[in-house]
């Protein structure tokens, strides 16, 4: 077990190095100039700026410096916010994205399990039809349309009520988070509902459920202990990757709801060619993903002994 863990962590480190290298060389092949401003600068000011960001060094030296700093956990200073450390940016904005992402996954998991179980119980009847229609919407409508409509809906609800039940955008309190998290979790919720439904249906028809019924166990007990618990397993398996994907995929929601998350920061950095922020964010997210996957794998081995480690 320890050997395996160690091996996985080592592999993870190599992967992060690969991501860092790929990002570095990708960034340095970007056409354009992160130092250009609307007011053209003289060659002297430019030279000063280049020296400040180490752009005057040959590429190989820059790469070595980059890796050295990277090992020290220092991603440098931002190009657009010239007195802010990339580390500070990540530290301030990632928790926002993570909070939103976790909340969204919780919504998705809760909704997915509940709705999935409900549709399985009421198969081919009204609740099933309604929920499956919502699922179809959740799967096929692009997230930015959802986000825009969700916000519009809030405005109209607030307007109709005459007071604000929930803020339409911004960040700061829990009430700010609910709508964005719902929108963000929508696609995953639809997916989990489908998954839950088919795994429930499989179990409803299984031998052990029939046996339990034949034994005369109370229905609540059969439902809770045999059906629900076993049907949830496949849902749990996809939850880990879902958390990672949602946490890094909140761009749209963060943009529409004016949330100061790292995703929005990344999009802005790309639009302003902020090299250091782009590199820092990408490497950070890459590392986050890699170690999340490792963590989830290890946890599975611990939770479910059937999932054999290699």
């Amino acid at each position, binding site marked *: 077990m320890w050997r395996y863990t160690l091996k996985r962590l080592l592999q993870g480190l190599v992967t992060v190095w690969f991501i860092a290298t790929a990002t570095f060389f990708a960034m340095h092949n970007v056409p354009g100039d992160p130092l250009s401003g609307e007011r053209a600068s003289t060659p002297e*000011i430019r030279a000063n700026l280049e020296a400040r960001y180490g752009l005057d060094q040959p590429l190989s030296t820059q790469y070595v410096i980059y890796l050295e700093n990277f090992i020290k956990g220092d991603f440098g200073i931002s190009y657009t916010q010239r007195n802010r450390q990339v580390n500070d940016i990540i530290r301030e904005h990632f928790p926002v994205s993570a909070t939103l992402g976790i909340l969204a996954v919780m919504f998705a998991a809760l909704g997915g399990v509940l709705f999935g179980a409900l549709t399985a119980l009421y198969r081919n009847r009204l609740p099933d039809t309604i929920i499956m229609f919502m699922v179809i919407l959740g799967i096929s409508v692009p997230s930015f349309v959802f986000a825009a409509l969700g916000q519009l809906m809030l405005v109209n609800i607030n307007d109709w009520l005459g007071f*604000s039940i929930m803020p339409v*955008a911004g960040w700061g309190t829990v009430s700010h988070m609910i709508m964005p998290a719902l929108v963000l979790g929508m696609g995953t919720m639809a997916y989990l509902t489908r998954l839950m439904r088919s795994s429930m249906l499989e179990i*409803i028809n299984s031998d052990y459920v029939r046996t339990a019924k034949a034994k005369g166990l109370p229905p609540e007990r059969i439902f809770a202990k045999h059906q629900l618990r076993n049907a949830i397993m496949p849902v749990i398996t996809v939850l880990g990757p879902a958390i990672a994907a949602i946490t890094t995929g909140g761009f749209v929601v963060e943009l529409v709801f004016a949330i100061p998350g790292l995703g929005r920061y990344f999009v802005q950095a790309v639009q302003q060619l902020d090299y250091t922020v782009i590199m820092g964010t990408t490497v950070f997210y890459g590392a986050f993903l890699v170690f999340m996957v490792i963590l989830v794998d290890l946890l599975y081995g611990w939770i479910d002994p059937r999932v054999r480690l290699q």
Partner: protein
Amino acid sequence: MRSPINSNEGFNRSASRQLALYAIGAVLAFILLMLGLNFAASLTSTSTGGVAGAVDVENNEITAYLRQDPPELSTMGAADSVSGIVLGHVMEGLLRYDEYGQIVAGLAERWEIEGDTATFWIRDNARWSNGEPITAHDFEFAWKNTLAPATASQYAFILYSIKNAAAANNGDVPVDEVGVRALDDKTLEVTLEQPIAYFQKMVAFYTFSPVNEAFFESTNGRFGAEAESLLYSGPFMMTSWVHGASLRIEKNPYYWDQSRVKLDAINFAYVTDDTNTLLNLFKDGRIVQVDLTAEMLEGAMQQRWVLNRFMDGSVFFIDFNHREGRVTANKNLRKALVLAQDNNELVNSVIKLPGYLPAKSIFPVWMQGAERTLHEEYPPPEAPLNIALAKEYLEKAKQELGLAQIPPIVLLADTSPVATISSQYYQETFKKNLGLDIVIDQQIFRQRLAKMETGEFDIVLAGWGPDYNDPLTFGDYYASWNLNNRGHYRNERLDELVRIGQNSLDTEERMAAFGEIQQILFDESVLIGNYERGYVYATDPRVKGIIRRVIGAETDYTNAYIDVEAQ
């Protein structure tokens, strides 16, 4: 196939009851968790975001938004309009613009500009937000430090009229030789390269603000990075800055002119440039003011909002690449392009926002001349749409260039919404009217600038905004030495005229020079005016006194107050 269980209604009912029980439990647990989170957030967060309304009568506060997180709040490095808005509230220099756009005394109680020497006497009650007096040394330090090559300030050029400033910025002379000196704590003497007519207008720009040296040193290179790492000289001071989320400014108790400030605090609680989001925030009563797009006007009229229009002073135009080997270096081709378009159509039918005006020359319509506006004194020559004539010029151009067909013309544009629309509009217009193929090269803003610098374009959708309230801020754009003249237009006569504009102290002569510059640019078809940018905005009727201005903070809440009576 129907499973046997489906027929088992009793089982289903019990199961759903169980499910409902779980659901209620889960929802309750969830709510509990949310409450916990909320509590945790209230403990750690310094955010002012909250769910406050746009107007807080009780605390005498208003809530507004910023288009982006201010990139740089050190006055020595700031170079963008959002930072400009914040700095306009929290910083004041020697002079400032009043609500009518006139220069008035700021921290300097009086000043004197005689020949190449300017002297400013700083108020006795001018203080930093920590209570310490603002001295002439603070100005000397700020200006010299801006010019220091190591600072690499993008706006250092605005100080170049001071003696040795350009040389110091280029590293040719030590910064100490720059012509700014604190005679004593309250007197600042500035030596200029030569007498100039508009120096006082420039001094109101935020780059001329003071910086306290001791405080600057104490921030260890993080000057201006956080709310605490700045000292404020203006009517407000920043008390909290959650990057990307919110920014709060409160009344500065040490500001010398307390009577000017009526609000106790302003929350910039939202940071976004998504127009739909901002509209929704305004509709929901969260922000006091919002800019509208053309598509929102109908809804705004329906809501019976109070609308105003405002022009931010920038001029947008098509700039040509005059480098050798480019077809656009040919004057007849440029003439053909000028005559084959009608910017009235662009503004009235495509952009369709009443704040916008068709641009008639590089000088905007609001620019003051000697007595009246420059446009009234020197009306810009116009060339109305004339497709037949345009085609003649095109033929001439083809002959001169020795081409049977003009190769596709590269139109460089950035990704802003208006640039996206305009570029497609011009592509189709030139195709329709002249049969010319235009290929659009859309790049993000910085990349557009980089490509302009290296000359990888034929025509480009460019724009220029004023730094100070004098025609020179536009007039020197096409000077051969101006680095912003990225199309490399060269004209000796124009250079001479720009020098007159820079050096002459005679207003009439200067304005005549600008008039002639305008004529040369027209005769040589150096640019195609597109539009002067404008805004239509809706304001909360309870808030009065918000100023939108061309120079300085684009949106200025300094004089704003809450009108309790208004509904």
